[in-house]
């Protein structure tokens, strides 16, 4: 088992190296010379030369990459070109906001998606199954930023039930913080819940077809006991992997949700950076996102091995 885990970790290393190369390569897509843009209107040759040395742009590309990686490994992702604040500090400021949104969204997604998937599979072909499938397809087809706009219109503008935008840290006012995040978390969680429902349904259906479920039924066990105790526990194994895969969509969805509800999180940071042409911040955010995604997937792989007795024994 340890060998399998070590193997998974080893496979993640070249992926990480390639991701870093891709992200470093992004800046090479920029049209024109970045130094001339930084030098301002005067285009003083001495300043241009100094900037070239400062950003190592006088070095060959492989050396530039090696120097960039050296900085990244030390936790130095550069500084914002606009505010000169270190990118790591900016990310550290914004990340807790997005984590709160992501955790609340996951609660919605799991709370909606897994029970709907289990019920749908248990009543295959029935009205519940059709209802759950319509919910899932609709959830996957509605753009979450539009759902956000519509909820703002109905819940905030018409009914005055929840605030339409903004963010209150939990340390300042816990209940207000939850109240402000409810709508964005639902918007983000509903789409994930829809996908989770489909995966749960599919995992449950394949488990419900197995011989041991037929045996459990033949023994006269209650339908609920068979579904929850025997089938669901075994269907959980692939669902764990799916949850890890959905983490990437959660981060991507957060970009749009934060934009609609004006939440000052990780997603808003990247969008603002894009419009301010703050490329160091864009690179930093993409790198941290990819790193989180790789680590979460690695964690899910290990968890899958630990949860699956057949893998554990090998």
């Amino acid at each position, binding site marked *: 088992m340890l060998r399998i885990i070590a193997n998974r970790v080893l496979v993640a290393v070249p*992926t990480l190296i390639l*991701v870093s190369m891709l*992200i470093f390569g992004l800046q090479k897509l920029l049209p024109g010379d970045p130094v001339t843009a930084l030098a301002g209107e005067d285009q003083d040759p001495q300043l241009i030369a100094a900037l070239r040395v400062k950003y190592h742009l006088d070095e060959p590309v492989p050396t530039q990459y090696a120097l960039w990686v050296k900085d990244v490994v030390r936790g130095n992702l550069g500084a914002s070109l606009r505010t000169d604040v270190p990118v790591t500090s900016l990310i550290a400021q914004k990340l807790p906001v997005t984590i709160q949104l992501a955790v609340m969204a996951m609660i919605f997604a799991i709370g909606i998606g897994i029970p709907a998937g289990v019920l749908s599979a248990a009543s295959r072909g029935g009205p519940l199954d059709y209802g759950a499938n319509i919910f899932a397809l609709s959830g996957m087809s509605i753009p979450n930023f539009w759902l956000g706009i519509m909820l703002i*219109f109905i819940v905030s503008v018409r009914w005055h039930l929840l605030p339409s935008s903004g963010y209150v840290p939990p340390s300042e006012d816990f209940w207000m913080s939850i109240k402000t995040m409810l709508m964005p978390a639902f918007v983000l969680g509903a789409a994930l819940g829809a996908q989770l429902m489909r995966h749960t349904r599919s995992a449950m259906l394949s488990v419900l077809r197995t011989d041991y479920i037929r045996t459990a039924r033949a023994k006269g066990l209650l339908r609920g006991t068979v579904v929850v105790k025997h089938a669901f526990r075994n269907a959980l194994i692939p669902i764990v992997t799916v949850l890890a895969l959905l983490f990437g969509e959660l981060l*991507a969805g957060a970009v749009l949700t934060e934009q609609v509800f004006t939440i000052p999180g990780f997603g808003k940071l990247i969008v603002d950076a894009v419009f301010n042409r703050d490329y160091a911040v864009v690179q930093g955010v993409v790198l941290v996102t990819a790193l989180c995604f790789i680590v979460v997937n690695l964690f899910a792989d290990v968890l899958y091995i630990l949860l699956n007795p057949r893998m554990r024994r090998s």
Partner: protein
Amino acid sequence: MATPAAPVRTPAVPAALPRRKRRGLAKFMRNRAAVFGAFLVALTVIMAVFAPLLTHYDPVQASFLTVRQAPSATHWFGTDELGRDVLSRLLYGARASLLAGVVSVGIAVVIGVPLGLVAGYFGKLVDGVISRIADALLSIPFLILAIALAAFLGPSLTNAMAAIGISAMPRFVRLTRGQALAVKAEEYVEGARAIGLGHGRIIVRYILPNVLPPIIVQASLTIATAIIAEASLSFLGLGQLPPAPSWGSMLNTAKDFVSQAPWMSIFPGIAIFLAVLGFNLLGDGLRDALDPRES
């Protein structure tokens, strides 16, 4: 004197394809959800192609006498903040969405499928390198990668399509590679190799036709994802630029007028929802019809 080479008879690709196709089509037609999906897709295509015939309003020309008018007999879906007819912007906006969906998936298929075929067929080092590159691209969430690429390439519909296509490409590499790995072990491929056919011919004549059905299904589902991605990028201001109409950029403007002119938000959202739902239902129906495991 060289003896003339005996004519080489290439092994037949598994027969019964026409019958399988007919059975697949019949199965598709029996699936009401899939037929409804195909109808929604056809409706979107008709909107995009015949937009100039379906409306006489200019989608770009501002008219300050008709600013933010509610839906009426003159303007069925109302007007926007510049007095433009929302319905005509919606009809012309279908072009951007469809174009983005089809072109970006085209880019993903054209790059991803050959790479997947080569990785699956040759295996070893080639597979290792291609698979690691695909893994690296997959480890950056689809929309984040598209945003980053659109940011560095600059905002425009063309760059958004390129960004979405590159971001979707690794899905096709993975899918095709897996399918090619399974097909290359089949007897008819072994037979083709045994009579000395070149790798290129084996890949094109024997492997590609047999890996196509899941690729078609994936393409249909990815068009749905690409339409949402284009709308998302345009919503963020990184796709279609104003005043050209696109459903995402219409929603970007509409969000600031949600309390005064909700129709500006309602109709573009419904349009995206129906188009994406159409491609999702179509993809699901195709999967049920083409995948023998579903029967």
